[in-house]
């Protein structure tokens, strides 16, 4: 199976956007440890990280951090 034709699909695979056989093909490659697919998926997460940066950061209340740190004690 050649994975070069899958170049445009890796980001969409990571997002879960693909509905049909395209996603299954990548999943099969990855399950067989295809190094090209793993590399491409790593590149894809970089592209998605860039796109996610378009969201404007939001201010958090200090109590939220306290709540998180308090929650660690229960873990």
């Amino acid at each position, binding site marked *: 199976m050649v994975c070069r034709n899958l*170049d*445009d*699909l890796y*980001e*969409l*695979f*990571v*997002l*879960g*956007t*693909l*509905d049909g056989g395209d*996603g299954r093909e990548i*999943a099969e490659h990855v399950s067989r440890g295809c190094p090209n697919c*793993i590399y491409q*998926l*790593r*590149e*894809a*997460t*970089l*592209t*998605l*990280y*860039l*796109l*996610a*940066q*378009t*969201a*404007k*950061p*939001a*201010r*958090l209340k200090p109590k*939220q*951090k306290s*709540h*998180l*740190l308090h*929650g*660690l004690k229960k*873990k």
Partner: protein
Amino acid sequence: MIAKQITSEALLARVAERDESALGELYNRHAPGLLGMVLRSLSDRAAAEEVVEGAFLRLWSGARRVSREGASVAAWLMLTARAAAVERRRAGLKLPPHIRAKPDPLEKTLAWVARPESIAKMESRRELLKKLILQLPQPQRGILDMALFEGYTETEIARKLNEPLGKVQSGLRAGMRFLRQRLRAVLGTWSAEI
């Protein structure tokens, strides 16, 4: 007080040794961006805050493994929070979970997560990259946002926009290709024109 020059990955190594102050510093650095992203998926602020907190609790539990695998903390947090937000949104809309979301997309995928050096390089060229995203044609940007933030599949996007599936698929692929090629050019991993 933790110095800003300490990398997030060095902090992660401390989190793996159960250093709560290191997790607190990671929270200071990354939580505002994550909350902003999650609020694009979930309009309920309390639910969005829960998702962000959940991502940090997972990091606390999985720090050793994330650290050992050499994944970028920022990218891991983004993917984790995004997946949780989208699944919560889809459950609220009574849409099925993403196929890849069962049982958990992040358990077996650490090898896919971008490396810290790539994220650092990207952060150092943030302003240029912002301009790059603005070059993305608006219709493509719209459907990429629907996929990333709203978590719709390509079929669902086509249905929502009342467009042919093939047109939506082409737009999604072209949009991602546009970003990928220019990102590689900016980061010097490829020689495409910007």
